[in-house]
């Protein structure tokens, strides 16, 4: 035996495996991504609109309005999480058999986990980016054409991208970049539970699993 004993699965291999998996199952990945895109687009749309309106009509619209907006954001976030969790769950469970096979070929639990988390990260990032840009664009264009105001709405909206105010959750959430980060975090969290369960299955259990 050589001294090279021990299974290997470098991160670069895991990354290219995940990327190939997304590319070749593009239809499936698109469906998963679509729920992320819609969720994040909805969230960003709501928050961007909220920000534009409060800039137009003054920040002093009162505590009640602020509170109401925050509530809307929380609900939007919730809806978007449910969608992402659901599609992540599906995309992991339909590949149990593949996981079983990988484990027979020498994959360890951590390798399986790695593959799925990298996939979730990529889906969350791409889906989040598309969703955030789409939501922001729609909100901005809509407001620009419906609001009769002397304020340049495009300028207001564009400034949201650079707004990092940790003290004001509404302001912070209105930044599309923060929404993209949220998308990645939610996708990772959503994939973590099913991927962990799948990774811990014995190869026989995983192979027996029929969807």
């Amino acid at each position, binding site marked *: *035996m050589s001294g*090279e*004993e*021990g*299974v*290997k*699965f470098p991160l670069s*291999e895991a990354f290219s495996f995940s990327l*190939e*998996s997304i590319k*070749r*199952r593009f239809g499936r990945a698109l469906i998963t991504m679509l729920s992320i895109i819609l969720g994040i687009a909805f969230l960003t749309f709501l928050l961007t609109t909220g920000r534009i309106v409060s800039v137009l009509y003054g920040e002093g619209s009162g505590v009640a309005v602020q509170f109401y907006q925050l509530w809307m954001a929380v609900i939007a976030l919730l809806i978007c999480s449910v969608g992402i969790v659901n599609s992540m769950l599906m995309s992991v469970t339909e590949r149990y*058999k*593949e996981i*079983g*096979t*990988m*484990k*027979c*070929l*020498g*994959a*360890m*639990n951590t*390798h399986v986990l790695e593959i799925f988390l990298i996939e979730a990260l990529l889906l969350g990032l791409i889906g989040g980016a598309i969703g955030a840009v789409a939501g922001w664009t729609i909100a901005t264009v809509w407001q620009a054409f419906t609001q009769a105001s002397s304020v340049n709405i495009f300028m207001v909206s564009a400034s949201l991208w650079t707004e990092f105010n940790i003290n004001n959750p509404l302001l912070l959430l209105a930044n599309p970049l923060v929404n993209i980060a949220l998308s990645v975090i939610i996708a990772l969290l959503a994939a973590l539970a099913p991927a962990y369960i799948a990774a811990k299955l*014995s*190869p*026989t259990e995983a*192979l027996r699993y029929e969807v």
Partner: protein
Amino acid sequence: MALRYEYAVETEDLAKYYVMGPVTVRALDGVSVKIRRSEYLSIMGPSGSGKTTFFNMVGGLDRPTRGKVFIDEVDIASLDAYELAWLRAKKIGYIFQTFNLIPVLTALENVMLPMVFTGVEREERLRRAREMLTRVGLGERLDHKPGELSGGQQQRVAIARALVNDPVIVLADEPTGNLDLHTGLEIINLLKTLNTEKKVTIINATHDLKMIDVSDRIFWLRDGKIERIETRAEVAVKEVE
């Protein structure tokens, strides 16, 4: 210098019980066998006799309730997760009834996959996978996905995948179960040829009687116990009678 043990696989009082509510199913109930290197072995028995359970225990895919499995004289229960993964990657090749290829990967990539885990360089992976696929007669279909291949071809890819890391043993669970008579025979002959060529131990769990003709020994399993062990000659004599 690499040591060559006489036995590739040894089991000692191997048992697996499944508790299903009030009943305990004794899928495997005290099996002690020794399987020599480069032997071609068939485990026969009706469905539910424990063939697949035996396959899973010997392959380190599931833990036994009682007893031990030695592969190359190493008790596999003593291995940690890391060593067990190495065992599966390097020392054992698996062949399944349902082929179990990764659907999104091409034939070539499927065969390359086990070598990723054993840390073979990319160039070498490509070379060996090509060579192995050509050996099983699929040199022309390297870039086809499993969905574009027939059952027999898929099983050939699986055989190439099982053998590409030069394992000590190849475990096959009903390798001809999903194939027609003719294709099944081709697969059996291919396994036998590779067994002779590469001196690899092949263990089949099967109820395909065509297997008898090429097997060195046959273990007859019934209700989780070894009913009898016969050599090919003994079976042949019985058939004549």
